[in-house]
């Protein structure tokens, strides 16, 4: 244990995803030794990002206005929604150029170990978006791992009576992985070969 504020810094850094206790310590001491101007710039950006970046009121993607640029784009196909876990997955799917519809970002996946249940995800918002009948197809593009699969099963059961086409990305994605890490070609193929699911 280090004293006071240094330990606080290590603790805070350690709470970031992908940073273990050793990594947190390394970053903390790097910051202590760094040029004060660099550290000031970092802290300013951290403060600004929370003020200016928002989440799209429709789909949950990162946005700089009430709605994200995809939801505002009139050329996108409004009859089809691709459901993903995180905003970074929107980017991954966009890179494939396979998909011209809209997105819905859940904000995670069902994971009881992390205390995340369906009520903690943007599922109510999804159901509300489907109410007016514009959308005819939903693609479940949650991660190809245990949590992502469980979330897809949950959603396919929840939505099964709405008269929509519901499909899941075809296999070929690295099992146990993260959508983000699938290369464009593989992910593109998984989209093309998506198969419809029934709860």
């Amino acid at each position, binding site marked *: 244990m280090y004293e006071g504020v240094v330990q606080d810094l290590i603790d805070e850094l350690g709470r970031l995803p992908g940073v273990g206790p*050793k990594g947190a310590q390394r970053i903390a001491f790097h910051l202590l030794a760094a040029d004060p101007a660099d550290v000031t710039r970092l802290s300013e950006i951290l403060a600004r990002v929370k003020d200016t970046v928002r989440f799209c009121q429709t789909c949950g993607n990162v946005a700089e206005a009430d709605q994200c640029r995809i939801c505002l784009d009139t050329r996108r196909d409004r009859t089809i929604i691709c459901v993903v876990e995180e905003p970074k997955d929107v980017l991954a799917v966009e890179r494939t150029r396979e998909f011209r519809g809209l997105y819905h970002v859940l904000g995670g996946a*069902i994971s*009881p170990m992390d205390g995340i*249940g369906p009520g903690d995800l943007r599922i109510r918002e999804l159901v509300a978006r489907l109410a007016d009948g514009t959308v005819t197809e939903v693609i479940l593009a949650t991660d190809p791992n*245990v949590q992502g699969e*469980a979330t897809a099963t949950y959603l396919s*059961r929840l939505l099964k009576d709405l008269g929509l086409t519901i499909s899941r990305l075809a296999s070929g994605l690295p099992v*146990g992985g993260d959508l983000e890490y699938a290369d464009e070609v593989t992910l593109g193929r998984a989209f093309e070969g998506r198969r419809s699911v029934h709860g």
Partner: protein
Amino acid sequence: MHVRQLVVTDFRSYATAQLDLGPGVTTLVGLNGQGKTNLVEAIGYAASLSSHRVATDQPLVRFGAERATIRAVVVRHGRDSTIDLELNPGRANRAHLNRSPVPRPRDVLGTLRTVLFAPEDLALVKGDPAERRRFLDDLLVARQPRWAGVRSEYDRVLKQRNALLKQGAPLLRAGGRARRPRPGDPDADEARESVLHTLHVWDTHLAAVGSQLLYARLRLTRDLTPDLTSAYDAVSESTSGASMTYRCSVHEEMAERIAAGEVPEPAELEAAIGASLAAARDTELERGITTVGPHRDDLVLRLGELPAKGYASHGESWSFALGLKLAAYQLLRRDLGDDPVLILDDVFAELDSRRRERLAELVADCEQVIVTAAVPGDVPAALLAAGATASVTLGQVSQG
């Protein structure tokens, strides 16, 4: 296949060590605590990515060092493959195959296959069901590396489901028999609904992944049993009827069919797990754990009519454990059309002289056998004479 070279750094008691090996028998001799088992443990790790002695990697790293490395050069059909592993306790391990990094260490599984018999294996007979489940699952992975993925997926689903049972139990109990749900408490109703829905989802996944694992174990048990019977008899020079049956945690009707040696189709197993989970719902909510699935199963070992556990003598138990490992060796050999590497750690000291000679004869035609012994006199002379010997002293290997 055989291991041509082993190089370790900061592994167990070794700062660095290199062991050059050939086909045939190599005997590592040295006094207690000098580092013989450490070397064969490294070879086993290169094959299975786990130690036969400890569940975590920390004890494998030399005290005071940050990481350990293992390199094994494997010769198969005349071609070299090099496995490089870096063990970083508390962080992700890294692996190279033929000097190129692989995305996950798991990708090197299958390059080297070993069957390792060590004193700890007595627990296969005398220990908890978990020991026998691990034996089956490790062998599945040695047969087909893809089972490593299925196994870890199952573990994950199980952990998630148990977490949900623990969280959901108070909610569901409150709405259950103890207290009627108060009407006009929509929040509580919704929370209960949501837990039940989610639990159902995990049931589906547990049954889907669990039935794959169960089916694979049942086929393995069926394939392995004849080899077990003949290996036990060969070592003990008797006809003792060593056998095994699979004890399954699903509902009775299915469990009986399985115990009788039947291997039902995966779809049937999936349905049985699903139905058994539904039937166990109340118990599971009460206890907060999953009571049905391959993680609750066992392998019942028998000598004739009697169960080995609790009945077999020490020597019989030892021979049974050895029989299981030799059976695994035969199975892999047949499957792969190639000999795995056989490792016998401290085995001879525990056997009477007749069993020693029998074992030496049994392993004489294996492509590579690595034997450790504290007392060279315990190893049958024929085996010592036929192969090479290396002596191990205080974390140093010297080869003559």
